């Protein structure tokens, strides 16, 4: 298999055994069953290569937050090694629960027409008991609500026809959550980009596959990835996103875990905050903010944004907003890691991992929290009661769209 070659030949020997990764892993701190990044990653790999007997199912407790990789002094792709090992040696077949949690797009399509009912059931005590007992989805977890009307429908009806009139274009990879749960994020994206003179195109995208990767649904993940890469090549435009997790998956998990080469399009896949910041640097766009906008917010940098190294762009844009009182929260994981925290066996760990962050948010007492990741949003909202918004939504609210449009007329 190519991916074996790819990860193994290049990387695990570079480990110098310093255990710094272990120091940064949020899971090992709370879950004694998890062997930790060093053992699960480079150390275990040495044994597994000799004999797959050494594969340890407890590798599933790794939530792929990549904090270990960000910290490793030798650039070992620890989480990639762990997930490739799960792919190669794991014997556990994904059950109904994994399929439900990972099937973010299929489930969305099915749930959509019945959104009010699904939301009520998923939110009801009885529904939660069933999910807990039958499926192993923790009953204490609240489910993200499905929006009755999706983003794509709105876009086609209201916005699609005018997009070609803009001098430049981007392809918007909106991801499942924008379509099914948070269409307001997609709407804000289109409004802001249009205001700075950039047209938006949609592709025939499929779920990026992150949840399939973490739920061991490898063939499905690869199918989606191959499809998406083909779409990106066909579009031939910058692929702009609003979710940090989708971004990291498209850029890094495709080549590193799914062994699909994307070097021809990787540089073009960017989150909207980087896209806007680069345009500002180039002098291509101008932003005009509302003089009366006021808010006190706290920015939580999602793990995958930290790994991408791109939080500086979001911070820069937020700092431009005149009426914004901004605190950047301490770097730390919220504990949800996609579908990880939904699982009954992970619930207590997920909450323990996030506790320092929740405490800090309560102490800051902002009007709301800003974060690029939808699952961080669900976790923080459920655990603290504070509302979490995507930065593009904040920008949309803070910008004077008419004046911005005028300033960008060319």
């Amino acid at each position, binding site marked *: 298999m190519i991916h074996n070659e790819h990860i193994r030949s290049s990387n695990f020997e570079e480990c110098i055994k*310093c*255990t710094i990764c272990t120091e940064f892993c949020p899971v090992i701190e709370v879950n004694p069953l998890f062997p930790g990044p060093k*053992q699960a990653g480079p*150390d275990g790999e040495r044994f597994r290569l000799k004999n797959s007997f050494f594969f340890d199912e407890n590798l599933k407790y790794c939530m792929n937050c990549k904090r270990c990789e960000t910290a*490793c002094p030798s650039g070992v792709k620890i989480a990639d090694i762990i997930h490739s090992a799960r792919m190669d040696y794991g014997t556990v077949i994904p059950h109904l629960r994994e399929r439900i949690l990972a099937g973010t797009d299929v489930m969305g399509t099915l749930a959509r027409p019945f959104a009010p009912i699904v939301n009520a059931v998923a939110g009801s005590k009885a529904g939660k008991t069933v999910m807990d007992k039958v499926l192993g989805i923790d009953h204490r977890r609240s489910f993200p609500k499905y929006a009755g009307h999706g983003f794509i429908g709105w876009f086609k009806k209201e916005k699609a026809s005018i997009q070609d009139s803009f001098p430049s274009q981007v392809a918007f990879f909106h991801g499942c959550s924008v379509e099914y749960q948070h269409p307001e994020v997609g709407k804000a994206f289109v409004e802001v980009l249009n205001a700075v003179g950039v047209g938006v195109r949609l592709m025939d995208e499929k779920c990026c596959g992150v949840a399939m990767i973490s739920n061991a649904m490898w063939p499905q993940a690869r199918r989606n990835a191959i499809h998406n890469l083909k779409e990106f090549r066909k579009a031939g435009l910058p692929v702009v996103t609003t979710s940090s997790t989708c971004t990291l998956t498209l850029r890094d998990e495709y080549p590193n875990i799914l062994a699909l080469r994307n070097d021809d399009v990787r540089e073009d896949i960017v989150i909207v905050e980087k896209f806007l*910041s680069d345009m500002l640097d180039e002098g291509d766009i101008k932003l005009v903010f509302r003089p009366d906008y006021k808010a006190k917010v706290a920015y939580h940098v999602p793990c995958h944004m930290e790994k991408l*190294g791109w939080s500086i762009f979001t911070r820069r844009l937020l700092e431009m907003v005149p009426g914004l009182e901004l605190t950047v929260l301490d770097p730390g994981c919220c504990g949800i890691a996609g579908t990880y925290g939904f699982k009954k066996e992970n619930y207590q760990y997920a909450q323990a991992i996030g506790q320092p962050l929740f405490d800090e948010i309560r102490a800051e007492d902002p009007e709301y929290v800003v974060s690029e990741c939808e699952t961080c949003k669900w976790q923080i909202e459920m655990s603290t009661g504070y509302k979490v918004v995507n930065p593009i939504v904040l920008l949309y609210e803070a910008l004077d769209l008419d004046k911005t449009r005028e300033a960008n007329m060319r």
Partner: protein
Amino acid sequence: MRYDVVIIGGGLSALVCGIRLQRSGKSVLLVSSGQNAMHFSSGSFGFLGRLPDGSVPDGLIDAVQALPESHPYRKVGTDRLREYAGQTIGFFESAGILLHGDPLHNSLRLTASGATKPAWLAMEDVTLFLSGEVSSSGKVLVVTLKGFTDFNAPFVASAFSRMGYTCRLEEVEMEEIASLRKNPTEMRSVNIARALEGQHVLDRFISCVRGKLKDEDTVVLPQVFGLKDTSPLAAIRSRIPAHVHFIGTMIPSVPGIRTQMSLKSAFLSAGGTFLPGDTAVRAGFDGSGSVAAVFTSNLGKTPLEAGEFILASGGLWGKGLDAKYDAVIEPLFSLDVDYPGERKQWYDPDFFARQSFTGFGVVTDDAFRAVKGGKTVPNLRVIGAECGGANPLEEGSGAGIAIMSAFMAADSILGSI
């Protein structure tokens, strides 16, 4: 993205320089590919432990005159060195790190071989001595944790015995530590430190040690306490009725990591920007030979622009230099590197002999400005282990050079020198 100053590196010199600049109102961005030499620190800083003739200097500042003129200390100059050395403890205190020691003289610290070595300033873990005598009663108790092989307690104990002390060795067995042993590779200093962070675990450890103590006046423990802050050290010292000394373990270094994390928080809370896990891969120069921008692997084609750049990339060890078969290069800016032309002269096959490669570094002018192709780069300064003209391992001068050159580079950017 534009900042006043962009620093490449995330070790001691980068952070000290970044804090000083950011606190003086500059916007500073630090890009750091990995962790750094602090994670391997002994828990003490060296300034000048050995002169070229092999002797140990007492007064540090005057001793600098015996170093070659191209040495970083000579560039700082004795007056400023005295001033900076005097500021160091206060500077670290303002970042939440308590250092102790005489800033102008060498003291001694205890090593794992029971011997003493010169040291300048030390973190709270490390005891500094004025003489080589460690215990006045001559009786020493060495305590370790069962199963912890990164602290060679029998070796430490026998070393003390050889030095003429009466030394006993005891092991403490604790459930919380034993559970780490399920994965033998996790039985490392930082994991133990984390397990010992809980108040009740620490309490039990302390009472175990008290139970084992007989007539010794000195207790030696491994450096596995206080990853987040130093309160466990204070608790141990106040509740064990003997002088307690903490001795270095195999890497990683608990005191070094704690100090590095405190420096990083101080930099962040001063408003600095830190890019962890990112590598500067390429630089752009303008027509006049100044650095215009640096590019990193995460940021791709987005340039990091600044008026001033600082290279604090750690020399050969930190990957700030790259040894090819027949040349040593500085990979980012292609700066001039100071090293003997003949590969044969790079190293001595005797591992323990003076090694020339530990002294390779970038050539700089008197104000730590980099030299490239014989010409000074006006807005690029080189500090810490990346800077040539010294052999920190040989001289025991690593931290001193890192801090002094960082102060000087910051002050010259701020225009105060």
